[in-house]
């Protein structure tokens, strides 16, 4: 059994137990979120460089050099000396500027915060010292509203969730939130001559919109096809914004796909009832040479990634932002 020396005290770590779980089990107040090495909420710092190296995948080169590591991914078999990084690992404070409801359970938030990011990356938002969840950025750093650069977030509310109901209701405009980031590499990096396929479901539209804005900002030359899926018509949002962009850019085509139009609602010409996997397979049978971006629920991203890869897209040309469930 390994010991964890944390802030001068000795804690035990059971075989197979992560540093994060061991410290929390013994009463330490450590921030956590995904337990999957994605949100960076649990990042701590360790003296043992060798052991730290094994649990740094996804951290920036600077963080790696400082021996930061994912406490949720580290299962040590020797004694480790662990501390919290300075200034909470670089959390910044933001202020909620405004919030609007855009679909029955989806809200669009604008947060002012000092942060350099690339559209499509994500941040981890904290409700208190220890509870964090990740949300993707739909904004572009070149946009500003009354001279202020705002982060745009799309949040789907989960009834009994730890963070989303708080973000969608309790947090009030003018109040501050603590953010960590940016992180992630679902960003526009294609060559301008490469056709693009951007597909997302639900609030997966947030990072997709970020990537799309950046592609247009860089005057992407080849075709850009955007597929946005939702379970029901009411789940679609930002449709006018997307159709406006499509009208202004000849190489951009946007389509909305409804899985189940139960009430036979009238659909506008850009919207159809279709299974997104099938629609994609039929309309994009050969994805060789494409740059593909897939965003939203993990199950969607996983299934679609396989489909697009088998459809000819190179693995290195498929970028994903998978909303894994925290826990």
């Amino acid at each position: 059994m390994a010991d964890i020396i944390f802030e001068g005290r000795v804690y035990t770590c059971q075989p197979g137990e992560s540093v994060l779980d061991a410290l929390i089990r013994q009463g330490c107040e450590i921030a956590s979120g995904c337990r999957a090495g994605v949100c960076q909420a649990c990042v701590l710092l360790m003296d043992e460089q060798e052991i730290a190296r094994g649990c740094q995948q996804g951290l920036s080169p600077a963080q790696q050099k400082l021996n930061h590591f994912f406490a949720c991914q580290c299962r040590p078999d020797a004694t480790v000396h662990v501390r919290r990084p300075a200034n909470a690992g670089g959390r910044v404070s933001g202020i909620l500027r405004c919030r609007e409801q855009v679909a029955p359970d989806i809200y669009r938030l604008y947060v002012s915060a000092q942060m350099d990011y690339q559209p499509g990356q994500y941040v981890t938002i904290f409700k208190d010292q220890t509870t964090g969840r990740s949300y993707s950025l739909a904004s572009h750093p070149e946009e500003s509203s009354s001279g202020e650069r705002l982060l745009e977030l799309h949040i789907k509310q989960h009834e009994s969730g730890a963070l989303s109901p708080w973000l969608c209701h309790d947090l009030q405009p003018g109040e501050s939130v603590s953010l960590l980031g940016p992180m992630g590499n679902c960003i526009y990096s294609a060559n301008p001559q490469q056709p693009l396929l951007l597909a997302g479901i639900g609030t997966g539209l947030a990072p997709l919109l970020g990537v799309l804005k950046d592609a247009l900002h860089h005057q992407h030359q080849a075709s850009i096809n955007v597929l946005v899926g939702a379970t029901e018509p009411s789940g679609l949002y930002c449709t006018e914004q997307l159709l406006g962009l499509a009208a202004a850019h000849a190489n951009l085509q946007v389509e909305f796909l409804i899985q189940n139009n139960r009430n036979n609602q009238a659909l506008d010409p850009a919207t159809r009832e279709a299974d997104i996997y099938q629609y994609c397979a039929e309309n994009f049978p050969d994805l060789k040479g494409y740059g593909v971006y897939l965003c939203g629920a993990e199950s969607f991203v996983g299934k679609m990634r396989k489909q697009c890869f088998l459809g000819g897209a190179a693995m290195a040309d498929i970028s994903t932002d998978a909303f894994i469930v925290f826990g």
Partner: protein
Amino acid sequence: MSLYDELGGAAAIDAAVDIFYRKVLADDRVSEFFDTTDMEAQHAKQKAFLTVALGGPNNYTGKDMREAHKHMNLNEGHFNAVAEDLIATLEELNVPQAKIDEVIAVVATTKNDVLNL
């Protein structure tokens, strides 16, 4: 010069891995072993395998091979299926038959470790 270098080294190998990975994923005989949610990790494993098979720089040992396949209960049929997919990949890359034979000879030496015999 190894086939790995002839094909263009590390950069070109990614394309070969894509072709090979697509083949095994579509091969009912073995797809279950390759079909995982973590496609990136699986892709990295295929890359390591192809690097070894094509004689590229690696420090893979028989022990690693053995360890990696330990709990998979693989049989000769699985091994041969993957070898066939590899041959088809090399054919698609226009590798001459003599070179393909060399690669398969290398792969054959890993058989006991892969099947944990």
